[in-house]
């Protein structure tokens, strides 16, 4: 592997990311499975870095998952998107940051289609007025929330308490990155670093002391596949794709995985559990899995957030071996406590996965 070659490519994909003043839109999956990640994103950007990140309760899903499950027409999803953009405009913003990769890809695709077919944009603007009485607008800058954390990575590093380093050996942790397919595969220029060697997560990991591990199936989809996961009869598709990725990364012995798409960490975490429980196969050390994180969780960890504030207790693959490796303290007694210290009981233990 020639690192300089990648650097040349990264230099060619420079995405303009404004420093401040964003309209923030949440992700259906991240809210459902990683609510603490979104809370952490807002806490870091607003409270630690002093940025203006605005959220309104009036925004909704972008409809992307329903659309990519083929259950609503393109015109419907475009009008929902137009409504989100219109809210941004209404609240006086022109920079739009979304938490979801499916949304991000769909926004890029939609804006490109509008640009190419102005009559369609006109129709959507009329739909928007008829249904919501909102004024049509488009963001001046559209970024994914991981683009912002990438932008702030050095500021985060400057405030960090821990590094992605094995405290016993002093060696950088071996980190696998996984980019959501809809981040830049459709429009390479919209992603930091392009489509083939995206830099958005690599940049974070490098800034925070870790070492990126490339492996053959790095670019492969996690296997969500929308309908291929929602319908039980199709789920083998989803599982087999995650399985392919883990078989491919196994020889590289990664310490952890970092992701930027909300769905991928769920699938990469949970299918490891299924593979362990059904096949007896685990990919981490000593019967553990390889812990999978959102970029917000990793940012939170290096900044010294309590792992249980980050929601790491809701992962199925246990994170404790990694926390020990870095030297991040945690209180096992507090893992399953509710907000006011109420003990919520413990989840059952998996049969195989430690």
């Amino acid at each position: 592997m020639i690192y300089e070659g990648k650097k040349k490519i990264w230099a060619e994909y420079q995405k303009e990311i404004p420093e401040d003043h964003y309209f923030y839109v949440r992700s259906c999956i991240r809210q459902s499975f990683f609510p603490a990640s979104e809370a952490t994103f807002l806490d870091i950007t607003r409270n630690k870095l002093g940025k203006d990140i605005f959220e309104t309760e009036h925004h909704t899903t972008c409809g992307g998952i329903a659309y990519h499950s083929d259950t609503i027409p393109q015109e419907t999803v475009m009008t929902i998107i137009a409504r989100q953009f219109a809210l941004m405009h209404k609240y006086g913003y022109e920079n739009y940051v979304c938490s979801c990769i499916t949304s991000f890809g769909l926004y890029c695709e939609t804006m490109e289609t509008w640009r190419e077919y102005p009559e369609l944009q006109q129709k959507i603007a009329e739909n928007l007025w008829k249904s919501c009485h909102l004024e049509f607008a488009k963001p001046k800058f559209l970024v994914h929330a991981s683009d912002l954390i990438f932008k702030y990575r050095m500021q985060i590093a400057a405030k960090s308490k821990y590094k992605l380093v094995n405290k016993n050996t002093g060696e950088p942790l071996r980190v696998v990155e996984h980019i959501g397919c809809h981040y830049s595969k459709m429009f390479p220029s919209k992603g930091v670093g392009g489509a083939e060697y995206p830099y958005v997560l690599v940049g974070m990991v490098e800034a925070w002391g870790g070492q990126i591990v490339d492996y053959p199936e790095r670019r492969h989809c996690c296997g969500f596949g929308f309908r291929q996961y929602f319908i039980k009869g199709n789920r083998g598709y989803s599982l087999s794709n995650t399985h392919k990725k883990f078989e491919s990364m196994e020889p590289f012995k990664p310490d952890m995985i970092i992701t930027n798409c909300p769905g991928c960490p769920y699938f990469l975490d949970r299918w490891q559990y299924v593979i362990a429980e059904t096949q007896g196969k685990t990919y981490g050390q000593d019967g553990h899995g390889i812990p999978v994180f959102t970029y917000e969780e990793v940012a939170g960890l290096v900044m010294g957030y309590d792992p249980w504030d980050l929601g790491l207790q809701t992962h199925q693959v246990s994170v404790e071996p990694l926390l020990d490796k870095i030297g991040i303290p945690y209180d096992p007694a507090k893992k399953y406590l509710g907000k006011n210290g109420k003990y919520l009981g413990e989840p059952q233990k998996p049969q195989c996965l430690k």
Partner: protein
Amino acid sequence: MGKLYDRLMKDYRLREGLNACINCGTCTAICPAAEFYRYDPRRIVDIVQHQDDAQIEELLKSDTIWYCGECLSCVTRCPRKNAAGLIIMALRSLSIQTGFFMESEKGRQMYLLCKDLNHNILNYGYCIYARAFKYDAHLEAGVVWQWVEKNIDEVFDRLGGNLDKEGPGAMRKIPQKDLDELKKIYDITGATEMLENVKNAGLKKAEELGLTEEEYCQKIYTECSPKHFNH
């Protein structure tokens, strides 16, 4: 040029996605579905570009068009700027419009997908709504999700969420006014009508099979013929 092809060409995704295929196979080479299913996206693009209605009709009635996971990895690789994934999406929409989707096992899954996802959107404003995501239907979500489900309000409170509560935040209760707007968008953009058609087609099929709606849902949720698979 056939009528089905004409209808396909009205779809912006086809107009954007079809730009003369050179049959090189770079799409199929990296397609997550192609390794798993008996599936070759290159063939589908080739069939569509032939503009032969008989072959297109066969596709619309087949399981083949439902194998794609819409990851759109194919888009990056095509040397001719085609988008196999977008062409599939246009075919699926036409299959639903023509009712041909009811002729394949994978197509009939539309009933459940339409019902569940849009129920979440129209009632809560989310595609995925944590409280409706049940461990029983998703054992793969793990024993940790079983624990979350049991303590869902506490867990969301603990993790900075705002489950079903007023104001902004993760999984907040989205105001009714906003949900009403979503419904209006559905009404004027054809989603309501499409959902109604999919629902009626499914219920008719259930009746033909002598199944209750619940039994029918169970059938299409779990059914999976071995003929789909590659191995």
